[in-house]
């Protein structure tokens, strides 16, 4: 396979995504506002525990992850997902806007951080940045 072919395949690669947030309206907002054709939302989870269970059955390529959630928070969940699939791309989408939380999430294996509240444009840009990092 030539380098050009491999690059073209990379650009056409489809990504399966899971949205993890305890808020139904945020899960629906992310799904609705997602304007990237290469990403298909295939699963949602209302907390970290459900996300891990879902991920074991269906190890998706991309995850958006809230932090403050019941049962299992997003930081712990990021660590568990990365253990299962080290190359998973995780965008933390959280209201916790202090630097220490963002750094902790990145240290645990997240690839990006988007602060709530966010616009549809900010969401798209953050996810595109995530995908660029995967190529």
């Amino acid at each position, binding site marked *: 396979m030539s380098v050009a072919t491999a690059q073209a395949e990379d650009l056409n690669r489809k990504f399966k995504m899971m949205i993890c947030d*305890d*808020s*139904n*309206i*945020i899960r*629906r*907002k992310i799904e*609705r*506002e997602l304007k990237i054709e290469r990403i298909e939302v295939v699963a949602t989870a209302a907390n970290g525990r459900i996300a891990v269970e879902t991920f074991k059955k269906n190890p998706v390529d991309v995850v958006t992850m809230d932090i*403050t*959630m*019941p049962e299992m928070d997003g930081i712990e969940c990021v660590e568990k997902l990365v253990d299962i699939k080290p190359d998973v791309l995780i965008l933390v989408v*959280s*209201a*916790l*806007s*202090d630097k*220490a*939380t963002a750094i902790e999430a990145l240290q645990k294996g997240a690839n990006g951080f988007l*602060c*709530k*509240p*966010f*616009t549809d444009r*900010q969401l798209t840009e953050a996810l595109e940045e995530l995908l660029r990092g995967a190529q």
Partner: protein
Amino acid sequence: MMSDLELATFVEGTTRYFEATANQAATVGSPYLVQNGKPTVHEFTGMISIAGKRRGVVYFTAPRPMLTVLLMRMGETELTEENMADLVGEVANTISGNARRDFGKDFMISVPQVVAGDTDRVTTPDNVRSFVIPINWRSHAAQLVVCLE
């Protein structure tokens, strides 16, 4: 006791929320103190408990018509009781979480607790001064109540 600067953090957080979420800024009035431990409470209230270096409660309370329009502005088509309850919790969570930018990581916030209808369940502690931040958005009025030791 909260300082003016700390209160400003919540005022800015409220303004930012409406701008980003509804693409339409809210007008935030001058904060005032809660009288008699009974702040104004609307049909839906989202409450966040604060622990760590500061302790207290932050809550966002709003009437149904405001939440209906806010959900519509977000593009939500399911204007249900559940989504309105979800929304007040998310507003309180987002504004409280954003406050960590100034308060730091030790400003620990709980998951939202939502009260729908039962206004007697929403109270503020007697021993701590609680501030009301009035929020006017379109023709609707809501309140953010901040009570921190």
